[in-house]
């Protein structure tokens, strides 16, 4: 979880983010960030998400749960 938080903070150019933060609340959350997150999840967790999956994801915690549910599937 901490690793995911750090990687997302890096993509969003934030010092730190909390698992309860809503992804869409960040100023830097745009199509580039979405693609960067998709690529990061593919490379680090072996999970392929679509932009639509991220659209319907709220907080970082929700994203973590989504990644866990897709892992190995």
């Amino acid at each position, binding site marked *: 979880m901490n690793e995911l938080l750090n990687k997302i903070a890096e993509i969003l150019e934030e010092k730190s983010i909390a698992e309860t933060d809503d992804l869409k609340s960040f100023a*830097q959350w*745009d*199509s*580039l960030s*979405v*693609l*960067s997150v*998709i*690529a990061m999840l*593919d*490379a680090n967790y072996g999970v*392929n*998400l*679509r*932009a639509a999956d991220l659209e319907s994801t709220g907080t970082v915690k929700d994203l973590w749960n989504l990644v866990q549910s897709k892992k190995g599937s």
Partner: protein
Amino acid sequence: MNFTFHRKHISGILAVIPAHERSFVEEMKNFNFPESRSLKLKEVMGYDKHRLVEPGVCVSDLAVCGLEHLFKNGLLRREEFDALILVTQSPDHFMPPTSSIIQGRLNLKHDLFCLDINQGCAGFLIGLMQAFLLLEQESIRKVVLINADVLSRKTSPKDRNSYPLIGDAASITLVERDAEDSVIHANLKMDGTRHEVLMIPAGGLRLPSTPETALLEDVGDNNLRAKDHLRMDGSAVFNFVQVEVPPLIEDLLASAGASMDAVDYFICHQANRFMLQKLADKMKVPYAKMPSNVVTHFGNSSGVTIPMAITFNLADRLRTGHARVCLAGFGVGLTWSSMLMRLGGLSFCEMIDYP
């Protein structure tokens, strides 16, 4: 599906690129995004410059320029090839075929098999396969394969999703029989259920162009484009490539009985640097073996990017020596294809400007 082609080879490659160069930084003021974010996009994706045709320039203009260059410099004789294949998604007209227009403009002989193919990012491989098949006929001695697109003319300058990466170009590839007992392995997959991922919605007969289809609209992502314009679902394309291409190439190498290490270069369609570096990471291929610099310097010209990656990066090596290359094209259709061949001893391998 898998294919093998025997005793065929590429004997020359010429790329024709518009002299007109534009830069991302000068164009980013057209985008409806903060400059800092556009600069970030530039850095991540590897955008910098791209070559675009001047208004009014068509595919046949680039093709005729390239063929005239070859004729004039004694690199190809006008009567020595018996087929002319043009792969394009931006033809001069609906009808006649643009290959016929090129034949006519150059006054080429009547014993010439002219063929247009509507294909994009995998179009270099699809065109090569057709060339190999035609060469099974004795009457066909050499095939001129032309890949050409001027898709900047169908892309909205206010669409940051597509415009910065688009480039226009043509390539002319000479294909002929090989005196050596060589084998080229290839494979191909297509999935038409995903045809909307890369599409120009209007301008055909399903949705003819009208003043309404020319109106710029924001579909919710801050980009302005019309139905007459190319549209691309960037993240869907990214996922498609990362999921489908690595197993495609693994299968190709397995069916050819070749290892990854036996491949000198992986020459992939140049979607953008980001996508190719992620692909290289996933396939555990060093970046030096997978060139990804074409979009940064010239833009993504659809089926022309593989020949451009060759002429831009490997010209010296391939004029004198040989390399074992794995080609891979992926995109519109959706279509994905790879091909393993020994490439080299090219009688020409260069880039020229148009005009």
